[in-house]
């Protein structure tokens, strides 16, 4: 009985820290870092759905993130849309791109699939770079407007050019992503994803059509990535093709792996760890990439479940246990 209270209390504490963070943090820099982490949590969780749960290694995630960013940037910059309507449109455009890429790509499997996503990722980047009439090419899109101020009656207005307001926006986005995806992976759909990851033949034999479920995870993952892209665009206020290269896709994948695939907490940890570590490791700058590479190899060899998975050696979803306890 006490155990339950403690569990609940722990989450309440976490929630409190998250909400009060901007006021607890010593200075704005940490709020900035937290915003970047929150956006990256969305990105990493969305890739984890595709890679960790459905077992499809995709190298084109930056393309979805980029399409979301470009869509919302262009809609707000050139066509006067408001951020709130541009956001879902950005996510939808990413989902649509995922459909376009996924339909041909999922016709092949495993390694072939991964390489074809690499090719598509590069293609999308080449288009960002060269279709100057639309994207302004390598010059990028400066002057993206932040989300419009929300006037609040009691508290001061939510001015999004201020970090605090944006922190809450991305916090809500990150929390929503965690909750929605957690729901998803615990549902029948989520279990179908895992079945496909474990053994596609078996999945088909029990009536799961791999193609449709793979596409589904791809599109959903892309949509969240697109949403993250919109947040990125309206926080940094400038985007260019340089932010959506295959290296970015590798980066996100790295976070998924090192944090731990196939769980919800793992990627969150990966995102936080790999985003904030450089800030604490500034002295070891030149060695940073060497360490990453080494870390990746070591993690893969010794703990294929990632650092988080290694700590917990249960492979089936993190929250499965909670269900039984009726928390």
């Amino acid at each position, binding site marked *: 009985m006490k155990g339950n209270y403690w569990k609940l209390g722990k989450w309440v504490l976490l929630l409190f820290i998250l909400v009060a963070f901007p006021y607890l943090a010593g200075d704005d820099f940490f709020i*900035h870092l937290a915003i970047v982490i929150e956006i990256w949590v969305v990105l990493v969780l969305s890739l984890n759905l595709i890679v960790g749960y459905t077992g499809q290694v995709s190298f084109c995630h930056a393309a979805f993130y980029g399409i979301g960013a470009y869509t919302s940037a262009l809609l707000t910059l050139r066509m006067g849309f408001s951020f709130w309507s541009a956001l879902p449109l950005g996510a939808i455009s990413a989902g649509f791109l995922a459909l376009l890429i996924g339909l041909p790509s999922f016709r092949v499997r495993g390694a072939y699939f991964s390489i074809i996503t690499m090719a598509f990722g590069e293609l999308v980047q080449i288009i960002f770079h*060269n279709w100057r009439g639309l994207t302004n090419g390598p010059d990028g899109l400066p002057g993206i407007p932040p989300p419009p101020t929300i006037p609040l009656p009691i508290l001061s207005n939510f001015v999004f050019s201020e970090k605090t307001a944006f922190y809450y926006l991305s916090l809500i986005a990150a929390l929503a992503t965690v909750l929605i995806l957690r729901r998803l992976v615990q549902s029948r759909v989520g279990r179908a994803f895992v079945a496909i990851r474990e053994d596609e033949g078996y999945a088909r034999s029990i009536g799961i059509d791999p193609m449709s479920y793979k596409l589904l995870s791809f599109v959903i993952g892309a949509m969240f990535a697109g949403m993250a892209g919109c947040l990125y665009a309206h926080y*940094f206020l400038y985007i260019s093709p340089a932010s959506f290269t295959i290296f970015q896709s590798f980066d996100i994948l790295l976070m998924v792996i090192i944090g731990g695939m196939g769980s919800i907490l793992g990627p969150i940890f990966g995102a936080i760890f790999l985003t904030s570590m450089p800030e604490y490791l500034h002295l070891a700058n030149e060695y*940073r990439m060497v360490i990453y590479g080494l870390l990746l190899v070591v993690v893969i060899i010794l703990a294929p479940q990632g650092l988080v998975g290694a700590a917990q050696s249960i492979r089936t979803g993190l929250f499965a246990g909670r269900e039984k306890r009726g928390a």
Partner: protein
Amino acid sequence: MKKWALSFGVVALFVMLLGGSINPFPAEAQSKQVKIGVLMPLTGPLTLSGTLTCNGIKLAADEINAKGGVNIRGEKHTVDLVIYDTKCVPKDSATATERLIIRDKVPLILGDFCSSCCFVDAPVADKHKTVFITPVCAAGGLTKQGFKYFFRMGVHNFSGVITMMELLRQEGIKKVVLIAINDAWGRSYTDLYPPALKEAGFELVGVEYFEHGQKDYYTLLTKAKGMNPDGLLVCAEMEDFAPMVIQAREIMPGKKIVETGGSDLSQILKLVGPQKAEGLKSVSRMPPPTPEIETFNEAYRKKFGSEAGSFSYSGRDSLYLAAKALEKAGTLTDPEAIRAAVSNTELNGFIGHYYFDAKGENYIPLGIHQVEGGKIKYSWIGDRGKMEAAIKKLIDKK
């Protein structure tokens, strides 16, 4: 049990983040120190150029400190550089900018190298009222966004264009193939050159692109050969120009090649050898050598074990201007005063005579340099007053 440990781990991580922010790092600023932030790509594909620029800044800092430092209202301050590697990734550059301003509390920032980074950094600097000077970025749009605290010391692309017109005239080149790198810098030239060439009466018979690090230009050069130009007008940085020259000499021996200022011919000469480099002419970001520059080069060689480049001079100039401006402002804590001081500071730097207009733009005209008899020869070309006016006209028109 394990789950519990895990969630705790996440909370702990957040608390650590928090803890880092509540207990700030040990109080730094000893008195009599001025911290200058530096943002450069020190790893990744642009390492070479970023390192060249950063080293120039470092050496300049040594020089200034050797002479007693920066004099702020009678008190000598040593220059303390706070350098962050941005890898030319915009998100990392923005984070580093925030860190420099909020945590390190620098009154002024020099950097970045890549325009894509400058675009995200400038709004951050503006919001926090911190002067942001880029020694090298060339994207035209940067000074059009209305960033009050952003200043550009990098030589404008337009300067290269105006100088090039003079050079083409001098060389008697009428038909030109334009070969440019497919990035923001190169594209700005493929935007600018066609109308400029047309207006000046030259004939542009083709435009070709290449990617950074492409290495193989045979196809491109073969295509260019087929267009029968009098000369090749190239917009490339050293890493790409060097192999391109070699291959161009193979496919079109003797064809005139002029470059728009992205490459330093002294480095090219070393990389491709005197035979292949002979006859190359380019708009020069490198100034004719003076005793002061030679001293700098010597010191650079001794300190870093490699040769300084025009980027190093740009870096050096930016720190000297920053120091001069800070002395003029007489304060490290009044952002408006610092901004006003920078805006009104002029400097006779290595690259040229710097001064800023209301938008933070400069109009330095360039000279040319060429490889003659295995040696580099620098010269000014044309009427510099007229060229400055032409550059200003081009910039204002855009």
